[in-house]
């Protein structure tokens, strides 16, 4: 199929940037979206132009590196997939596809479609861990029983790949689904209880400091999340945050 691409081009963080139109031809419907981008880039390189910069790595939907806003949606129109798993069969011959970076004040553009998601890392530095030494001299793994239900729920929260689609989709560029998932994973497990009060306070404080917006419960994040992280994680974070503040 033949497509028109409207792509955001920005040479570096200080550049103003603009949308530029490109044409690609003979795109197979079996290609992944990123393979289509590869075709475009090969074309640009051979013409002596600069290829479009975009983040990508594992190309199997787990590393969370890829991050495009395609036709007005994070990771494009398909559900439960990252951009690398999005296939061209979701589009039609002759389509015009708008491709933009994930936009948020806390995710500054580095180049073209590449953004800096360091804010997510800093939120986790603030408390996304259990303070246990890696000596291996902990208690036996089976010494504390954990109900299957709690383990499964913690796992559901832990499946977050940190791609930032929640922030990109949110009309407020809020990071609450991400932070909620991280807080929830530990809140649901007995190992996380000891530091629960400080963890949620510190992580929320860092989240606010990074300049993310507030949650207005539109639910867009949950719909666009490639891993189906539930809004329940935000409610749980809110509860944790309140109880942490009550406890002092």
């Amino acid at each position, binding site marked *: 199929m033949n497509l028109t691409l409207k792509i955001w081009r920005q040479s570096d963080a200080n550049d103003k940037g603009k949308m530029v139109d490109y044409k690609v031809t003979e795109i197979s419907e079996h290609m992944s979206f990123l393979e289509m981008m590869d075709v475009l880039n090969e074309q640009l390189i051979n013409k002596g132009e600069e290829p479009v910069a975009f983040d990508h790595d594992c190309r199997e939907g787990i590393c969370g590196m890829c991050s495009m806003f395609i036709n007005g949606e994070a990771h494009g129109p398909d559900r439960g997939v990252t951009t690398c798993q999005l296939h061209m069969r979701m589009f039609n011959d002759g389509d015009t596809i708008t491709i933009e970076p994930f936009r948020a004040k806390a995710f500054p553009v580095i180049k073209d479609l590449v953004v800096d998601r360091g804010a997510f890392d800093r939120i986790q530095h603030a408390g996304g861990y259990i303070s246990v030494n890696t000596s291996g001299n902990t208690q036996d793994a089976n010494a504390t029983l954990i109900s299957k239900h709690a383990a499964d729920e913690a796992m559901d929260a832990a499946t977050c790949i940190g791609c930032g689609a929640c922030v990109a989709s949110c009309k407020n*560029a809020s990071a609450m689904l991400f932070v909620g998932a991280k807080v929830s994973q530990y809140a649901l497990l007995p190992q996380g209880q000891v530091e629960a009060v400080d963890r949620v306070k510190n992580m929320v404080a860092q989240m606010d400091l990074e300049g993310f917006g507030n949650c207005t419960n539109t639910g867009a994040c949950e719909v666009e999340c490639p891993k189906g992280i539930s809004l329940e994680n935000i409610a749980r974070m809110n*509860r944790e945050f309140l109880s942490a503040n009550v406890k002092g």
Partner: protein
Amino acid sequence: MSGFFKSSIGRKYAMALSAFFLMFFLLQHFAINILSVFSPDAFNEASHFMGTFWAVQYVLQPILIFGVIYHFVMGFILEARNRSARVKKYAKNNGAANSSWMSRNMIYSGLCILAFLVLHFIDFWFPEINTKYIQGDMSGLLGNGEGFRYYQELAHKFESPLRVGAYVIAFVFLSLHLMHGFSSAFQSAGASSMRKEKLQLFGKAYAIIIPLGFIFIALFHHFNHH
């Protein structure tokens, strides 16, 4: 708890709490207003009680006013912060694909409600305050002393089709606001059960029935006077 209300989540709690209060107030307001359809006397009695009982006037009323102002001011503050969280907008943003119109436009439905409140205050609240506290007439009686004035005043206001039209439009926006706001307040407050179907349904029912009821009252009085 210091700093709690400065945090994003703390503010959400505050927003939700004021919303709970306002939703409760709305229910109570509706309960009294609907009396006017069935029994002008009962409506008069209830209005007079609310208008003169000290706890309502000096405790609940200030709280309500504070709640309303807080809800609006905080709504604007949060909106401003949320807007600043994305400086550069998307060239193409397909919000309809992942969220409801209501949830994305709370600020606009809220502004419509604010405009309505101004009208509503001019219509009812200012004259009430004037009568009771400036002119000092706490009797609640009509000028000629023949019974309570509340029902008559109400009926009189709804003679104007323009005003009724404005009320109807405002209540449509209230409905839209509540359609998202009801469950959103529970979600903000950390209620996990709010995502269960039955409560969602209850929220929707509330968001439709209450505003529809107010519209019905306005239309009822409008058409009963012609």
